[in-house]
């Protein structure tokens, strides 16, 4: 005796958020049943294991049928197959596009290609995110990337409108797309201490200050590619380290401004020339795609690590960079 067929269909589609999360996390039906049993849901309604199994299968089937729609969330709102209240639709989309920070950290800056997809089982083993969930997250990245690639207009806004995501999630996706497009290297050991959110912040800054879109907001790929002209112009900064007078002048201006405002003043003064050279060299090389990829590793090696060994605090760093920038503006060459 066996149950050959077992379905339950509601006029309003019934979806349990807990089961949805288990499905998204890539649990098999049987594992999901175990988790639910441990969660104590059985006590709620005098349910038995069979009831739980039947319910879980129904829900999994519903989610599988919905998945096609979730690939283009705008369809979810005007499809006729499932009657889902709007706030549930928002939940479904938001959760479907949510990702694990540990997973995204692994693929950040990598090409979203079949090659990377093949490595997902390694990543799954490393991050202990199930392979199924890894695939979903990876496919989401790829899908968002493909759609916004061909669109004009601001990146975050495009993602939000096409995928109906919250502002926060849209910004995160913008960062992922931006990193994937520019292929920034983030996997080196020295960069491991940085979290996804750290990089997402950087991506936000780069998008709003260094891309074509920062200047002109109606060109293709405006937010995805760095502004070539801007990068070219960065080369002119070299004068700050090649011209000895200018270097000294800059240093003295910065030091005057910093004196008495920080505990590490001596170290700042001592390493000024080195740090300035480090920064300017990174900036001047950014016309090479290879060097763009190494942007973060270079920054860490040439600038952050020396500062850290001198025990600068975050506030010191901010102060230093503010004055570094402001002082440069005062120099005759840049007036």
């Amino acid at each position, binding site marked *: 005796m*066996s149950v050959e067929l077992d379905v*339950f269909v509601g006029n309003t589609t*019934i979806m349990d958020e807990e089961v949805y999360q288990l499905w998204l996390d890539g649990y098999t039906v049987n594992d999901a049943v175990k988790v639910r049993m441990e969660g104590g849901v059985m006590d709620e309604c005098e349910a038995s294991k069979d*009831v739980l199994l039947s319910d879980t299968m129904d829900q999994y*089937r519903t989610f599988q*049928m919905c998945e096609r729609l979730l690939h283009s969330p705008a369809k979810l*709102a005007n499809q006729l197959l499932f009657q889902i209240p709007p706030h549930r639709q928002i939940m479904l989309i938001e959760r479907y596009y949510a990702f694990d920070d540990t997973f995204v950290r692994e693929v950040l800056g990598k090409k979203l290609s079949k090659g990377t997809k093949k490595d997902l089982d390694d990543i799954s083993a490393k991050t202990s995110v199930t392979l199924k969930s890894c695939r979903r997250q990876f496919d989401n990245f790829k899908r968002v990337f493909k759609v916004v690639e061909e669109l004009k207009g601001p990146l975050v806004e495009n993602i939000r409108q096409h995928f109906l995501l919250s502002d926060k999630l849209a910004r995160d996706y913008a960062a992922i797309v931006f990193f994937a497009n520019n292929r920034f290297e983030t996997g080196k050991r020295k960069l491991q201490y940085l979290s996804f959110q750290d990089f997402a912040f950087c991506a936000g800054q780069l998008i709003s200050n260094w891309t074509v879109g920062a200047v002109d907001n109606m060109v293709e790929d405006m937010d995805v590619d760095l502004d070539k002209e801007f990068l070219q112009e960065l080369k002119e900064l070299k004068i700050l380290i090649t011209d000895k007078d200018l270097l000294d002048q800059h240093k003295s201006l910065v030091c005057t401004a910093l004196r008495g405002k920080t505990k590490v003043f001596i170290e700042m003064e001592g390493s000024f020339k080195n740090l300035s050279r480090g920064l300017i060299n990174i900036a001047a090389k950014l016309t090479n795609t290879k060097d763009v990829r190494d942007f973060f590793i270079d920054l860490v090696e040439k600038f952050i690590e020396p500062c850290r060994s001198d025990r600068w605090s975050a506030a010191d760093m901010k102060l230093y960079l503010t004055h570094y920038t402001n002082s440069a503006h005062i120099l005759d060459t840049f007036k």
Partner: protein
Amino acid sequence: MPGKLKAKIVAGRHLPVMDRASDLTDAFVEVKFGNTTFKTDVCPKSLNPQWNSEWFKFEVDDEDLQDEPLQITVLDHDTYSANDAIGKVYIDIDPLLYSEAASVISGWFPIYDTIHGIRGEINVIVKVELFNDLNRFRQSSCGVKFFCTTCIPQCYRATLVHGFVEELVVNEDPEYQWIDRIRTPRASNEARQRLISLMSGELQRKIGLKVLEMGGNAVVGYLQCFDLEGESGLVVRAIGTACTLDKLSSGTPASNACNSPSKDGKEALPTSSSPPPFSPSKPCSRQSSSSDTDLSLTPKTGKNTWPRPSFPFSSLPSPTLHIGEFPFFTLTSFPPGFLLHVGGVVSARSVKLLDRIHNPDEPETRDAWWEEIRQEIKSHARALGCHAVVGYSESTSICEEVCILSASGTAAILNPRYMREGCLDIGCTDHRFEEPSPPNCGFCHIPYDELNMPFPAQLTYCYHCRRQKVPDVLFTTIDLPSEAAVAGKGCLIQARLCRLKKKAQGEANATAISNLLPFMEYELHTQLMNKLKLRSMNALFGLHIQISVGENMLLGLASATGVYLTALPAPGGIQIAGKTPGDLSSEHISSIQKRINDTIAVNKELYQINPPELAEEGVGSPIPEPRHRSRLFRSHSESSDELSELDLSHGKKDAFVLEIDDTDAVEDIHSLLIDAPPPTGFYSCNTENMPGISNWTSGVQMFTSVRVLRLSNANLTNQGLNKIFTDLCENLLKSFYFKLRSMIPCCLCHLNFTVAVPEEELIQVTVTAVAMTYDKEQTQEKTAEKPINKGSLEAEEQLQFPLELCADSSSSNIQTASKISEGRSRSLRSSRSFGGSSVTVVKMTPLSFLPGTRIIKYLGIINMFFIRETTSLREEGGVSGFLHSFIAEVFAMVRAHVAALGGNAVVSYSMKECVFMENPNKNQAQCLINVSGDAVICISETDQESSASTANTGQTGGSETDGAT
């Protein structure tokens, strides 16, 4: 040329990719009605084509308008090969044919393919211009309204109830025609869908004609069924109750005409200007070739006078009733005062051997079969001293060439006062009816003669009025009358039974089945009775007994809602006895006895059954010693037309003494106790109204669930099978409770179980029901004051007070919900739009009402038939995946049609047929589904004042949906 049909194809969306090379589709549309076809231009390379076609005009007879559906086919243009069909939409234009319903059909329809399911959507506008045709020989019946609802629809008043209408049409099943061997499954499925659509249209038209001849303008309680007889053909049959309905002006709340719990009819009754009377409908004499019972074998008395020789009031001049040959009513609930007395359930079954229908134009055999059964029902009703049968329904079960026809209803006496306006020729008045019996107990009083009882029964004086006799238990197929006084809450009671039978062919098979039937009925009845006692209740409403036949077994499922009627005596307990008084296992027996007594005590508590104290006084009769008698009057005839009557009472033996004489008996008692009560916070019933709960809040969830069990063990015993079947039903209920736990406190209403034996070792159970939330605190308050059974006044208060509350809460719910969604979308920036979505929320319910709302317009009936087939079963997620998506698709198509009519809800929804066949070895499966219901516009109770005055239904409908989306 009395009508012009106009259709316009606007656009498509979400079309499937038909050209792999370009990932696009070159779509165009064919619009077909009758034999005329129009085409749109090809919209190249688009998955969201904009056709914006001209108006395609069809000039047609109104007869065709009624029969034919508008057929829209979406195709992919292919220059070099044949165009590929993407899918079809059938639009039933019937709702456009009567003035009060929809005026335009406009909206997005899912494009449906029988192999691939829904493939995108198409936006269509359809209009009809009708010209008046006064031809009296016309064959069309435009303008007759159809309702699936089995009560007088809200916002209408019945001025006349004419009586029973029936019709059937037959045809060859395209699936079994020779051509089926050479055509594709798709072509075959489409031929079937189209044929059934045509036959339904024709059937409805013919019924409409009968109604017009009777002088009515509507059919209420319209029940249409298909018999897929396989080789021998396809039968579409329908029954209904012809009425003359008056639309109430939209300002006045529907009053006397409807019994929905959201309205209270009582106050309207005394003041009511014209309660629905019966009309002296002439027997319709038509020259139609179709089924026509008037031409059949029954001796036709010009006017059907009902002689009631052996009943007390027969000495008085009996009121002449002219309610057709069959005084049957498919309605299950009536305006207060309509129903005078209820006799009990009458049912009849007959086993027939199917043979090919030779001449589809003269379906006389099928007509004769039903005729015979109806006659039987009529005679049973007469034996119970009743002149009418209410809550009447008919059904079939077919396996190979054997067919069981069943009919059942409730024998009743209707108030002649309602007939007087119609039949002015009644000279005399019956004194018995002059003095109105108290409304809350009158229907319980026996209609038959005490000294001449049709079956042994124990009568006591009514516990309410002390004037009339009442039986100790009452079984009916109708809903609990709104005026009835009950104690506590009702609950779903089911009797389940499996009987093995030897495989056989032809006559022998039919005889074997016929021989089994009485035993099954007897056992089902005993089970029901015991379970009723176990719950300490004394009446069953909505009783529905289904017997389903398979190759090697018969399944019986009886469902009803048990309730404690305070007018009836308290049920006695159940006594357990050994075979001999001094049995050895007396300890064992006393332990079982204790369990039973405990269960009864627990159930009393659970269903809050605290009957009024005064019942204890007992007039004349002390606490009645419980004895079993049957209110169920049944019989069955076999193919040989032999008629056998079965007395379901246990003769002299006291039935509530359960004898334990063998292991089977022990098993039986165990199975009695197996039924788990619903978990806390849940109640269940299979009727329209849940006895004891009326303060519904706005939560509504309609659902359909299907489960198929494969019996792997071929050597099962009856007992083993019973256990499996019982567990199957119980587990289904448990699943529902679990899934719907977020709605607690909630009640599962109108639980409709259908069983089938699709293959030798398969048992299929299909359930459709609605879960509705209610206000718990309100109920408790109410039940505290409930036992004071002061009758209608109080009941009215009870009804109206919670009503206001629930309306409030529903509206505030909606408000908060919209606030939440607004708030959210705002926080996500206004730019985050849902693509300007305009999908109307369409609620569905098997009940005739939606809590917290008022129906302001009926838009016509929805009657849809779909076939879905697959040759890639595994890829679609196996049988469950296949059926899950099909049911979801059917819901989607129903909702789309309702929305296109301008409606926002379907009431009286039912899934009449769900035939599932599989062949996993070939990776194939096929399923047929037939659904029906009434498309309506309903508005929230609180909107009533503001919108009623404007009476702009279109606008209110729109704003409602906006609010809900």
